[in-house]
């Protein structure tokens, strides 16, 4: 079976990539094929990479406070491209009050700072299994 592919992406201008890199490496160690965009990626570029790399899950890492707007734009971009089957999860400095807002915007899961790596691995694995293109 093909290894599930995950895109770890940092939209916006904040340069705090410590968390994104730790999660990317933990996913790789857990058997995922991980593509990391690096920091300061435009939303359009993230969407394009997700399609091009045929990923099952996009993980966004946002520590600038702009998580609701940026996540909404990524999900809209995937939707417009007909890629609703790609799950989007979000991590970073996210207040509890914003978790329902992100879920309402279409985020499949939200992992605020302090979430144990194991929880992220379990959650992403489940999403990857549910996504048709992961086993295509």
């Amino acid at each position, binding site marked *: 079976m093909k290894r599930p592919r995950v895109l770890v992406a940092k939209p916006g201008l904040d*340069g705090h990539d410590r968390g994104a890199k730790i999660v990317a*490496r933990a996913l790789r160690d857990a058997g995922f094929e991980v593509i990391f965009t690096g920091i300061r990626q435009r939303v359009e570029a993230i969407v394009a990479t997700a399609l091009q790399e045929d990923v099952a899950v996009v993980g966004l890492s946002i520590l600038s406070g702009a998580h609701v707007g940026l996540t909404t734009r990524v999900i809209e971009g995937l939707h417009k491209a007909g890629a609703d089957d790609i799950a989007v999860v979000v991590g970073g400095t996210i207040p509890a009050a914003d978790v329902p807002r992100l879920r309402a915007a279409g985020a499949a899961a939200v992992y605020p700072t302090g979430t144990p790596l194991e929880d992220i691995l379990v959650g992403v694995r489940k999403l990857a299994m549910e996504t048709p293109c992961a086993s295509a």
Partner: protein
Amino acid sequence: MNDFAPPNDFAQTSSGLPLQPVYGPRDRQGAAEPPDPGRFPFTRGNYPAGYRGRLWTIRQYSGFGTAEESNRRYRYLLGQGGTGLSVALDLPTQCGYDSDDPEVSEEVGRVGVAIDTLADVEVLFDGIPLDRISTSFTINGTAAILLAFYVAAAERQKIPRNKLTGTIQNDILKEYASRGTWIWPPEPSLRLIADTIEFCAEQVPKFNAISVAGAHFRDAGASAVQEMAFTLADGVTYCDTVLARGRMTIEQFAPQVSFFFYTHGDFFEEIAKYRAGRRRWATIVKERYHATSDKAAMFRFGCVSGGASLYAPQARNNVIRVAYEAMASVLGGVQSMFTAAWDEPFALPSEESATLALRTQQILAYETGVARVADPLGGSYFVEALTDATEAGIAEIMADLDAHGGMVRAIEDGYLQGLIADEAYRAHRDIEDGTRPVVGVNRFTTDEPPPDIQAYELDPDGREGQLKRLARIKAERDSAAVRTALAELARAAEGTANLMDPLIDCARAYCTVGEMVTALKAVWGEFRQPAVF
């Protein structure tokens, strides 16, 4: 794991330096006793009387807002007898985008002031005589542009350049590997930094053109020893760049260079880090650059106590962490310090928590007595042995970077980023599996829910005001003058002339930050980030 067994990391420091149960005279056999404080190589500090001549500078939080709000706060601070201003810029300004760029609309004014043109700087310093204050800008990628704005704003106030005092961080190398506000590739960025250094030395002699920062490496995950080694390697790269141009001597340049770090919780390791860093830098300046004066070899540094060493669970424990870290910084001989507030991991510090952080330093300075005697730990068997081991570790990492082809190469191919990511991952796993004890996180935990994260709130009126001013300036400025100034900047960038004069001409013509950055991108291209993890 709420047991009282000793932590299982007693045999090494958090950077992995091995530790014995006890130290004695035999552990420094053959090593020379470090000379008195104030004597080369400054292991024991820069000044013979330690802090008796002058305490360290106590710096605190600077806050956010629009140019108008910041101007009001500056006037208040100056009215209270303050003499130094600290300016935080928003991310679009730091990364070279204008406030009206749709890509960055969510970030305008979010973590600092938005600066698009000289008009914003005029508002920022309205009614503030620039010859009577010292201004510190946390700015890197666009540091030369902000310096041009500051010089042009002083011109409008009819203040001569040699009366201006302040600092720009202007340390691009660490941006590529950690903080992230890079724009152009390393080579032209280094040229621009050398331009600012030469310009300041000639025309703005009381302005510090660079502060080499290790703090961001640390925040990204580097260990204490790596932090110091990477920072000194950056310092060497800047010195090499400036000296290779042949327009300045090490004696003129080195006194302009200062350093900036994070102090975390491993008490003796941090003290040893600063003592070892001071000695290593002094040795490099003498041996590599053949400096003749001791002054050129002096390592001056500021620090933040807190940062990634603070945790959200049982957040009030951070008060204690910051206090120990601040004490380690002082025992290490710090020149200026910022103490983080205990709520920093999840909120903008409240006035109460920021005041408590300030009081932490004041109690340290005025009650504990640790500042009374220079380098009070000098001669301790353990501290001297750990200083030696730390210096050896720093030298080893610097030699490895050299062998790799130097700092620029290590940044371009992601080698440096990989080293930091390795260490960050290791530390994270060690905390998750309990190998590295953290009280309230993996030891002595309670059911107390962690505090909620408070997001930075954007002021939509502030952004609207900024966009209006930018639109007005664009409509009112002389567009022919703008085109000429930008063309001149691009032409100068193709050659080797100092770019500060063309940048100041652009500032005077009310060119925007984004326009200047774009003009230079056309000549230099953009940095391509290796996505290493």
